[in-house]
């Protein structure tokens, strides 16, 4: 989303550090976010994403450095900052024994929104996420998906200019994840809400974010658009190939691995291989190796690097963890990989 006010930073983070005793959770990070942008913080669990978000949303005090949101310092003018922001965290912020409406009225009333305005807004928000039917049911009886939708609209009660989303799709099924992503996009498009999202799911970052900051070990190690981040790999001497070999055998795989240009080989199913190679002659030498073993190459795709490849490239290790990222990752490969560039 290209912003009209290109130079207007709504969030300005300056040398922010947060330490818990000896443990440094966020180490001297600086970045800024433009108004109307969707900004992603991507990284494994424990990288410091959530802590960054907690500090920015005034829930924790920075140990060093500071940040400004909408021109207000998070330390000096915390209540002004709070009026501008909304936060959705992986924890459901709602009371199980209160009804959906009671929950929203309670949290809304803490923002001093006039009662009639608040009530109208709550009705609209409930309608927006199709919970109107359940407004008088206690949220303890809700399904996880319903609860997450409640969790999101709770953060929108004060019509925030900046919305923080901390792992919003964690533990949700693919369907609900898609819904949340669509909702976030819509919010950004229609209300021009600036969105900061943390995630360890590449698919979230890739599909949603205008810019992505990759966090690892308390630092931001790279920050750019998804396209530019991927260019870091494609610009380098590395190629990702997907081969379909009709008569795939262990022999053939061994032959490919034996090529000097091969970095990694993964077998995806009985006929498909994904290989990462480097060097200009890589393509030819792989094909030669397969043919030498009488392999039949049915098709070759040159895969776009994924954010995961980028992460691996930058940090030298994989986004370690976790079972629930597998399903979206497959989605991503299926839709994200385009056969467009063969060297």
């Amino acid at each position, binding site marked *: 989303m290209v912003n009209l006010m290109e130079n207007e930073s709504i969030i300005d983070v300056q040398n922010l550090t947060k330490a818990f005793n000896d443990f440094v959770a966020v180490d001297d990070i600086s970045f800024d976010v433009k108004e109307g942008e969707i900004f992603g913080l991507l990284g494994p669990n424990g990288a410091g994403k959530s802590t960054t978000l907690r500090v920015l*949303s*005034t*829930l*924790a*005090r920075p140990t060093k450095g500071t940040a400004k949101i909408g021109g207000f310092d998070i330390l000096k003018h915390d*209540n*002004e900052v*709070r*009026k501008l*922001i*909304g*936060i959705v*965290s992986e*924890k*459901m*912020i*709602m*009371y199980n*024994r*209160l009804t959906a409406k*009671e929950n929203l009225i*309670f*949290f809304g*009333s*803490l*923002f*001093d929104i006039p009662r009639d305005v608040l009530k109208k807004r709550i009705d609209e928000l409930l309608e927006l996420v199709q919970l109107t039917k359940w407004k008088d049911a*206690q949220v303890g009886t809700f399904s996880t998906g319903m609860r997450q939708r409640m969790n999101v609209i*709770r953060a929108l009660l004060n019509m925030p200019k900046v919305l923080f989303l901390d792992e919003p799709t964690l533990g949700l099924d693919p369907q609900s994840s898609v819904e949340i992503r669509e909702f976030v996009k819509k919010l950004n498009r229609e209300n021009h809400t600036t969105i900061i999202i943390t995630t360890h799911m590449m698919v979230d970052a890739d599909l949603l974010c205008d810019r992505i900051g990759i966090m690892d070990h308390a630092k931001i190690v790279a920050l750019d658009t998804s396209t530019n981040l991927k260019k870091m790999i494609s610009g380098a001497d590395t190629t990702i190939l997907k081969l379909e070999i009709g008569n795939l055998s262990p022999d053939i795989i061994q032959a490919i691995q034996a090529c000097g240009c091969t970095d990694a080989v993964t077998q995806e199913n009985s006929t498909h291989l994904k290989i990462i190679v480097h060097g200009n002659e890589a393509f030819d030498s792989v094909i030669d190796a397969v043919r030498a073993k009488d392999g039949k190459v049915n098709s070759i795709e040159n895969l776009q690097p994924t954010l995961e490849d980028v992460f691996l490239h930058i940090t030298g290790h994989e986004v370690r963890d976790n079972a629930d990222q597998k399903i979206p990752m497959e989605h991503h490969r299926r839709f994200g990989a385009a056969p467009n560039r063969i060297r």
Partner: protein
Amino acid sequence: MGAKTLISHSMRIAWKDLTELFRNRLGLVLLILMPLFMMAMIGFIYPSSNTTISNMPVGLVNFDSGNNTIPSQAFIRGLQQINSQTHMLKLSNVSNMAGIKDEVQKGDLDGGIVISSDFSASIMNGEQGTLTIVTDQSNPTIAAELQAALSAVFDQMSTLLAQEKVQNLSSTVTANDSLAVVKPYDVQTEGVVPGTPSYFNFIAPGIMMMTVMMSVMTGLPVAISQEKEVGTMDGMMVAPINRLSIILGKALGQTTRGLLQGFIIMALAIGLFGIAIHGSILLVVGLLLLGVFSFVGLGIVMTSVAKDQETAQMMMMTLMFPMMFLSGVMFPIQSMPWFMQDISKFLPLTYASDAMRKVMVLGAGVSDISMDLMIMIVFGAVMIAIAVPLFRRMMTR
């Protein structure tokens, strides 16, 4: 941020907490059952002046021998006669000391009475006859009660015997005269207010006070640490409200819950255990509120220190027991050793339950308990002064 918004936000939070509380059916039932159990258990178990032991199994060993055993026969008959009226003891004959020890070890007997071998002979010779009370050291309470009960019985029997002897000395002496000789003092007991003293009278005001004060001291840290753990605390923390209104709102909610419990205890005490309130009800309510005030600060301090719900619960247990026992809620302070009495002087609950007792049982007015009130106010104010900065720091880690 004005005081008005601070209070309105606190009220919202308190209202939310109470709504949650009232939706929790089981919690509500327990809220009523807990004080009921506490009152009933403690009130019935501990003796008041009119409760006595009953049917306590006691072994009787008669070593008395010799030609004439009439005095010991008379003694046993007298004992049985008194016991048939009071049913305090369940007497059984045992052949010797080892028998008593054996039965006590098995749990069949709680103690024994031993008549010495020269009992009758001594009495006949105009000397004192020796009786030994055998007690069970493993159970001091029972031992003491048995001793007290038997001493009373023996005292009564001795008096009768002495009266008889005095009357035998002179035929002109009447039964009343002989009693005046043997027992010159007639001791009567009367309370400052009408009614017999009962342990409920002692314990109900204390428990009432304790429940209300504990609700802020222990309920507050538990309630807040729970919200922190679930994550709902963040929802309040990101709202542009004064941090104090969170703790005030929570305290208000817990206080209301505590007062509710307090009133349930009062109603139970009056309805079920026949306690009359001699002082003004208004003063009782006022005392309860002051009790809350004096403990809010301590509650906030504990909230600031407790990191999670488990810690909060453990802290609550750790503090609650000494408070309960040292503040004279259940046992009189006067019966404690000196160092415990000294400790109890530092506990606000001591003064609170003392004041409540005076008002409820003795009908004392404000001026009578002014010292207690002063101490509670000072303690509360000092604690709040310590608590507020601590809490602010905790909230913005």
